């Protein structure tokens, strides 16, 4: 935790309410996000219990699995979910703009510009908490390899038509959410935690209710008290007033309310199967009761999610957020194209090259995100300045100088008076944003006096012997230099998967996918 965040958290404790740690919104927030609040069954991996889903905060669609251990009902739930989500995803697929991109021509091997489609906007999925993101991944994994009757008429338990497709999309969204700064799938706790510091621990911030209690404490309540209430206050029946944001449910709810309701449902279903008179009505009754119960757990989280969205919409947008969102749009367009091209679902495990590529891309994204957030937001930059990674001050002196080369280049020496204490050693490289938005490079050229740092400008001054007008600051200008690059580049190109080297097991085909199953022996038929 950085020093400035620590300070913000201490101030939050003192003031009894969360402190902003950002002055702008650092993630893209869609005008029409799809909110998804899922619940899962305790003790069953990947058995959804219910969900609220939709783009309209007033009319969410409630989906319920009355008996989560019944796989037919589970599939019916997933089919309904696909019906809600896929039209939303599809609605963004056809509104495209054309972008020029360099691609390698397979015949000549040269890079040639081609026109490619880029979706003008992309669908955005919002879940309440980080556990919700993990659940989206789990659902994706459980669905994408299923076969429908259309795909394989002989498959013993065919999945409903669009379920595998939804699985591929959720997998894509879940994987994309691991990229720092991406906004296709976001959790509210992560979003709010990026913009506010509370007086509780990071772990406690995972509870959406208590996080919001710090950000918007009710009149007359300090944040800590409101958070405690959100976490643990119960009604006369022992039920939480603010149910957990899921997907896990509260054990008291499970034991006291859910289990008896499911038992009644099971009994009614047995009656229907046994042909007992009136069973149908009792089954409907039991099912409605379950729907109401589950809705009672979901609705507070649903409202909290939109409450959080409202708070975030109150922030002005960061300047460079659109640039990152464009990468999300590329990501969405890319997956749309793979689905349209009939490519198979994402493999169970990444091969060596894919894993290395993903890690490298994410590290680049992380470095870019850190730089862009600081450039977009003076409060974030203040944190970097406090950490010695940047300094801001006023220009007191500019001395023209040139490099010693055949064609001398301008290398003006700029003295900046600052109270910051950056970690400068040797001729460390420095960067700043110029008035026209370009980045100017420089290098540290020593300290004239304590607090008077000399920067030698090395770039951004054009090609001539004299610097372009406006590219060299003047005494009295305020400027902020960073020790970090503004647009860090990615790593090197990796070999194709087919040329994976011997150190990494050779091409993936040679290792096959995963270990072979145990051979079938006579004992298997005993």
């Amino acid at each position, binding site marked *: 935790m950085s*020093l400035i965040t620590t300070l913000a958290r201490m101030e939050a404790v003192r003031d009894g309410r969360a402190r902003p740690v950002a002055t702008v919104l650092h993630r893209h927030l869609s005008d029409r996000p799809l909110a998804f609040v899922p619940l899962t069954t305790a003790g069953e991996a990947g058995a959804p219990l219910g969900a609220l889903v939709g783009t309209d905060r007033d009319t969410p669609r409630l989906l319920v699995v009355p008996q989560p251990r019944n796989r037919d009902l589970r599939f019916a739930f997933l089919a309904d979910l696909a019906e809600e989500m896929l039209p939303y995803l599809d609605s963004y697929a056809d509104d495209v703009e054309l972008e020029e991109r360099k691609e390698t021509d397979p015949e000549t091997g040269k890079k040639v510009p081609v026109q490619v489609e880029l979706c003008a906007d992309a669908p955005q999925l919002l879940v309440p908490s980080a556990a919700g993101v993990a659940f989206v991944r789990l659902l994706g994994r459980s669905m994408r390899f299923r076969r429908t009757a259309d795909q394989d008429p002989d498959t013993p338990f065919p999945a409903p038509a669009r379920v595998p497709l939804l699985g591929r999309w959720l997998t894509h969204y879940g994987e994309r959410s691991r990229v720092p700064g991406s906004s296709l799938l976001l959790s509210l706790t992560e979003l709010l935690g990026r913009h506010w510091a509370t007086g509780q621990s990071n772990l406690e911030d995972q509870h959406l209710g208590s996080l919001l209690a710090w950000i918007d404490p009710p009149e007359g309540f300090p944040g800590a008290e409101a958070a405690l209430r959100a976490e643990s206050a119960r009604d006369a029946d022992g039920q939480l007033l603010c149910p957990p944001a899921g997907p896990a449910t509260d054990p008291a709810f499970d034991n006291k309310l859910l289990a008896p309701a499911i038992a009644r449902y099971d009994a009614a279903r047995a009656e229907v199967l046994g042909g007992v008179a009136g069973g149908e009505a009792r089954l409907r009754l039991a099912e409605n009761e379950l729907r109401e119960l589950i809705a009672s757990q979901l609705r507070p989280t649903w409202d909290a999610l939109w409450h959080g969205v409202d708070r975030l919409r109150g922030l002005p947008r960061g300047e460079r957020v659109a640039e990152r969102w464009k990468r999300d749009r590329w990501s969405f367009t890319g997956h749309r194209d793979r689905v349209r091209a009939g490519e198979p679902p994402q493999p169970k495990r990444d091969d*060596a090259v894919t*894993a290395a590529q993903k890690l490298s891309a994410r590290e680049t994204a992380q*470095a870019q995100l850190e730089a862009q957030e600081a450039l977009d937001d003076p409060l974030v930059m203040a944190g970097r300045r406090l950490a010695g990674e940047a300094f801001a001050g006023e220009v007191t002196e500019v001395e023209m100088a040139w490099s010693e080369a055949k064609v001398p280049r301008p290398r003006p020496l700029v003295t900046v008076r600052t109270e910051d204490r950056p970690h400068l050693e040797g001729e460390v490289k420095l960067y700043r944003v110029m008035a026209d938005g370009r980045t100017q490079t420089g290098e540290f050229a020593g300290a004239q006096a304590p607090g008077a740092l000399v920067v030698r400008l090395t770039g951004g001054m054009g090609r001539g012997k004299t610097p372009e007008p406006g590219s060299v600051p003047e005494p009295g200008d305020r400027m902020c230099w960073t020790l970090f690059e503004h647009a860090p580049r990615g790593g*090197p190109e*990796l070999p194709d998967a087919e040329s994976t080297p011997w*150190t990494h097991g050779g091409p993936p085909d040679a290792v096959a996918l995963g270990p072979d199953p145990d051979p079938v022996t006579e004992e298997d038929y005993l």
Partner: protein
Amino acid sequence: MIGTDCVDGGSRAGHGAEPFDPSAAAARATEAILRDTLHGAHRGVVVDSPPGAGKSTLVVRAARELAAAGRPLMVVAQTNAQVDDLVDRLATADPDLPVGRLHSSDPHPYDPVLDEHPSVRTSAKVADLAGLGIVVSTAAKWAHIKNVEPWRHAIVDEAYQMRSDALLAVAGLFERALFVGDPGQLDPFSVVGADQWAGLSYDPSASAVTTLLAHNPQLPQHRLPVSWRLPASAAPLVSDAFYPYTPFRSGTGHGERRLSFGVASDGSGPDRVLDEAAVSGWGLLELPARRTPRTDPEAVTAVAQVVRRLLDRGGAAVSERSEEPVPLTADRIAVGTAHRDQAAAVRAALTGLGVSGVTVDTANRLQGREFDVTVVLHPLSGRPDATAFHLETGRLCVLASRHRHACVVVCRAGVAELLDEHPSTEPVQLGVTVKFPDGWEANHAVLAHLSEHRVAWRP
């Protein structure tokens, strides 16, 4: 598993009354390594080297022998400083050996000292270095080299600090390779989460050697058995705490290295801890327990004062290198910290006391370096918690194994209790080989030893 022809750690394993001859043991290990490298049937050879065991000497020797055998050789190191150091050593060892230094196109891409070697050619383009017997560069630079005839042989230096994905990017450039490194130092890391690949044999965030051995378990593995850097007072502790299953010995015996001061102690904490360290090789300057920010002003001042006194008291070192006492100068002293802001704070404090020329850096940047005396700000000093970062085995190992004579640790009291309150809680991942020892255990082992050399001081 260790190759059969490796030399055992020595008397601890019990070789009867036969005295341990460090030079002979090291020579046997080196011969076996060179035999496997030059004439072995396997595509790779792995050499584990504890701190100061002559890894660089081995690399230089192997490079020269491979070049002499007429095998085009590429050498992969991890940082530009390591590459420059290696090229300098190669050119010094054999001034006629043509060596290429492949460098980046940044300004000041390499150490100008290389220009003084006539046989060293430097270039940012690999084509300019074609035909040279040895070409040396960083892994990051090699990764950009495409469409070239593969080298017959490679030496990968600091292979335990190289990430698996970095090896993936360069492994297509060579046919066979010698991998050399210290398994006890800092593991490579990633600034983003890589848990989703944990347990895969090619986890891109794992070390290059982990991936290499997972896919090629039959490769011969060797170990250098003697630390020439660490004194007899330090080798057993470092070996026990950080290399419990692959012990090593110090090349020198007790009493062969001595540290003395021209000026007597003034009775202050820094002087008393220096006297303790001069006698025993270790000193713990313990400040009163307190929770502090990372740049704990009292601890930082204490570190600076220890260094100041070390210089003021006219320290002199006697070692196997010379009979005459050698004055302990600023360039033979280092200060090690866990974080960069701590290093910056110590630098500022030293400047305030008028000290210059002392190396002050983080564990990451001190890797591979050697000094006579080190002063360490304990990674857990003053902390309210013990995170995985601060518990990392390699971090403490690097900090505790840079010295030839003595190591002084400055720390707030209460670290033992802190450790007990924060046992390792990293999730266990299926398929990941558990590393021994874990940082928690290693920290306790070092702390237990240090407490025997404790000087409590209230500044």
